[in-house]
């Protein structure tokens, strides 16, 4: 077990900067998810930790050891690849046993540990087969088994669930989290799937274009996004954005856009005056934070043009003068297409248009 410390990590591929000045502390026993769109540098970061890439600048520590100059095999980390990277000419048993064989573990101990891990992962029946004859889910678990069997100090997972079907993915992500908790091993988990990130992580590091956007617990990331990128990226129904500006009306500050006039609390108005003097900012509101009534009250009225029933809930697609909003409603909603709703905005965020950072 060990913490992983990344200090000022920068990685160039030719002229392209894949990771830029990344600082990250993964505490001992934590599961940290590196979350971001493809090309954001999350996989490169992980490969630097694994030793498969050399950092251009910066240092990586595992425990107390600076590992920059160590070969992958000397770092005592286990990596589960997106492609699984199973050895196709070995059986599942030999795949899992391989790291132990390289460490010259006695034969009977290899046998015992491989069978233990296989039982834990429910793949005992595949052990004599080559990976090519196993299903995607089984291959995935063989890859997991190969990582677990070594009892490494750090687990690295590179989108391990992206190649399996949706149902199994939901199951496996809970499984991985449970395993990590029980083994107590530090884990860095790379994914572009924000649901995966939210459900699994102790801490999420959101990355974009090689830089760290925000590090925090899933609820911090969701409730207090540091900037509009994080706000946009996290949330299964994305946040609604309403461009506009802050103005005074009757002594009170409001966020005024072409479509809506939304009152802003005095506290927030003060912060905005300090942080965003121009007042030009975008209001972001999550779909579940928009309330509506069917009564004809207030000026914030808009028309429903589509219903998206999801079974457990319904998404109302609302349109006003070219602006689309998504509103979360109960499954048994009475709203019908064409209804005009009066909207109120419960909790929202303001993002400085110039910098994108949250005003708070």
């Amino acid at each position: 077990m060990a913490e992983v410390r990344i200090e000022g990590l920068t990685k160039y591929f030719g002229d392209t900067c894949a990771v830029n000045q990344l600082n990250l502390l993964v505490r001992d026993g934590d599961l940290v998810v590196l979350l971001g769109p493809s090309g954001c540098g999350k996989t490169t970061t992980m490969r630097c930790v694994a030793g498969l890439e050399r950092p251009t600048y910066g240092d990586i520590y595992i425990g107390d050891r600076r590992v920059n100059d160590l070969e992958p095999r000397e770092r005592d980390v286990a990596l589960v690849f997106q492609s699984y990277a199973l050895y196709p000419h070995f059986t599942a048993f030999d795949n899992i046993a391989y790291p132990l064989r390289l460490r010259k573990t006695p034969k009977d101990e290899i046998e015992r540990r491989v069978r233990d891990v296989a039982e834990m992962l429910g793949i005992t029946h595949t052990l004599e087969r080559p990976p090519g004859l196993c299903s995607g889910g089984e291959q995935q678990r063989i890859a997991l088994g190969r990582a677990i069997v070594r009892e490494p100090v750090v687990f690295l997972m590179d989108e391990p669930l992206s190649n399996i079907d949706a149902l199994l993915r939901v199951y496996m992500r809970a499984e991985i989290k449970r395993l990590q908790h029980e083994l107590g091993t530090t884990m860095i988990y790379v994914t572009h799937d924000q649901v995966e990130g939210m459900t699994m992580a102790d801490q999420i590091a959101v990355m974009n274009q090689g830089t760290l956007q925000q590090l925090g617990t899933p609820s911090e990331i969701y409730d207090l996004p540091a900037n509009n990128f994080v706000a946009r990226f996290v949330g299964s129904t994305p946040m609604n954005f309403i461009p506009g500006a802050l103005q005074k009306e009757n002594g009170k500050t409001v966020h005024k856009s072409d479509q809506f006039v939304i009152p802003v609390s005095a506290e927030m108005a003060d912060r905005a005056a300090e942080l965003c003097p121009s007042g030009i900012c975008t209001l972001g509101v999550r779909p579940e934070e928009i309330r509506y009534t069917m009564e004809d009250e207030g000026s914030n009225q808009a028309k429903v043009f589509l219903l998206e029933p999801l079974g457990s809930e319904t998404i109302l697609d609302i349109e006003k003068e070219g602006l689309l909003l998504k509103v979360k409603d109960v499954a048994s909603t009475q709203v019908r297409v064409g209804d005009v709703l009066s909207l109120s905005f419960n909790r929202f965020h303001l993002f400085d248009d110039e910098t994108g950072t949250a005003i708070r």
Partner: protein
Amino acid sequence: MTVQQTVSPLPGQGTDSVTSQPPPPEGMWSELFRYRDNRLGVLLIVPSLLTLVLIQFYPIVYNIWLILTSEKGEWIGLDNLSRLTRDTIFHGALIFSLKMGIVVVPMCLLVGLGLALLVHSEYAGRKAIWISILIIPLMVSEIVAGMMWKIMYHPTLGLVNVPLVALGLEPIIWLQKADTAFIAICVVEVWRISPLAFLLLYAGLNQVPRDIYEAAAVDGATRWRAFWDMTLPYIRPMFAIATILVFVWSTRTIGTIAATTQGGPGRATWNLSWYIYGMSFQRLKPHYASAAVLVMLLMTYIAGTLFVRYLWVERSSR
């Protein structure tokens, strides 16, 4: 390992088998002719199939006919073959061919593998240039290669002796002594054939997925260990193919011998091809030579089967 909880198999995962399957087809032919499209398809491949049968099997059958008859056309049964068993010149040629195979095959594979690894490595730069340079020997005809090397082996003018002379040693008269002539011919063959092994093994190396090397590196394998555990098993089928082809090429060579030693000194460098050529066209005993052809064919066939048997282990599909 502390965790012992078991995961129950998921629905649709693991050992669930399909319960209802369509009945197996009755046989290839009935299946083939079931559909109009297939009938047309069969019709279209018949000409090439016939050509193939003619050019593959007719010569073999004709060859056997030749063996069973004398040069005068009389039926002599297995006489030609039994004569062959007593023919010491033939024995010498057979042994020479086998010896060449034993020396040339591993050398070609080693050189080919070395070159393939070099070109495949990240340090090789423009790979296409290396490949086009390295396969030049493949494009040179046997006779031309033989002539070229004959000049290189020349006792006074040849390039091969230059370093020996420079070191103050006696120049070696390569092609005029039995053992040096054998070495000299093997060198020519290795030069000529190893590019073939290189090409095949290079193609094999390119099939090895990069990520399994990375997985092996993280799992704790050194580069050397990864080479043994990942690369070699992966390119094993290519190795089998390369071994067979190199064996066939090196044992049947005739141009190299014709251009360098002409079978000399004495009959020291007679191989099977040279023997068959000599019997057929110089001593004009094509029927007797056909018996040697059959032996050569069998030798190649047996060797090929052994190589496939012991080298070709089918890689499981990914």
